[in-house]
């Protein structure tokens, strides 16, 4: 008996290892995050107009794009800070409760947390979230198991600690 090779429509391409940087402004205490594809995290404080930004934390992670093998289109995911598993959220939270219900149907819920750019935190557009869902669901082999990735329509970026996201804090020291 021969096994047909599994064909997948979407593939992860342009994988860029780097750091998710969390920084804080000295006077307003505003926080923001961004990704750098560098070998070491940038630790220098810097001035931006009247603001003075200081790195707070760095997590090892990676960014990637997704290629549609059917059309050749490459969808960039440069705004993705990481995926947040519902079970890593507070039990009373909306996301936990929705995730718990979804789990009963063998659906694992994740939320795509984006970095904070010029326009603030903008949830990932639905068409891109659809591509992410296709990418990760095509990889599954457990019967009836599904992954559902949602955009951050819950404003989770305001509530969560970045350590709740599936990135690697603590593997490199800021000291």
């Amino acid at each position: 008996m021969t096994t047909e090779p599994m064909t997948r429509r979407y593939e992860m391409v342009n994988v860029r290892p780097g750091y998710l940087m969390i920084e804080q402004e000295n006077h307003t205490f505003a926080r923001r995050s961004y990704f750098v594809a560098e070998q070491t995290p940038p630790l220098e404080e810097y001035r931006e107009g009247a603001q003075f930004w200081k790195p707070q934390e760095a997590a090892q992670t990676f960014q990637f794009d997704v290629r549609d093998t059917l059309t050749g289109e490459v969808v960039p995911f440069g705004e993705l800070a990481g995926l947040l598993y519902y079970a890593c959220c507070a039990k009373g939270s909306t996301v936990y409760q929705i995730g718990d219900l979804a789990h009963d149907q063998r659906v694992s819920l994740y939320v795509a947390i984006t970095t904070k750019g010029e326009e603030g935190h903008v949830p990932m557009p639905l068409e891109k979230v659809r591509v992410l869902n296709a990418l990760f669901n095509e990889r599954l082999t457990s019967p009836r198991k599904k992954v559902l990735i949602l955009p951050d329509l819950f404003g989770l970026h305001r509530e969560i600690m970045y350590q709740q996201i599936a990135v690697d804090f603590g593997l490199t020291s800021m000291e």
Partner: protein
Amino acid sequence: MKIQELAERLELKPATKVFDRDVTGVYISDMVSDVIANAKAGDLLVTAQAHANVIAAANLVDTCAIVVTQGKALPDGVVKMAEKAEIAVFTTALNRWQMATKLYEAGIR
């Protein structure tokens, strides 16, 4: 090979209920981002990490089970999370290299 059989042969200690699945490969990593990028469904994840996001990553890529090395204990919350996700987690006193050797000797490629 099924995970239950492999666990018995390698004397892995179950930290959760055992959800038996075929082991189709192995991925060794301590970085959840690396697991998400590179592990494959059906892989046995060997890691020294025992925190919640290891379960989040293993669940996302559909690994068949997790082996936590160097005798690390799992926090209660992580055990519950893994069981809910139906991912068996085992512990071993061996380090990752020793575990890799044992897996190879057991015929897992």
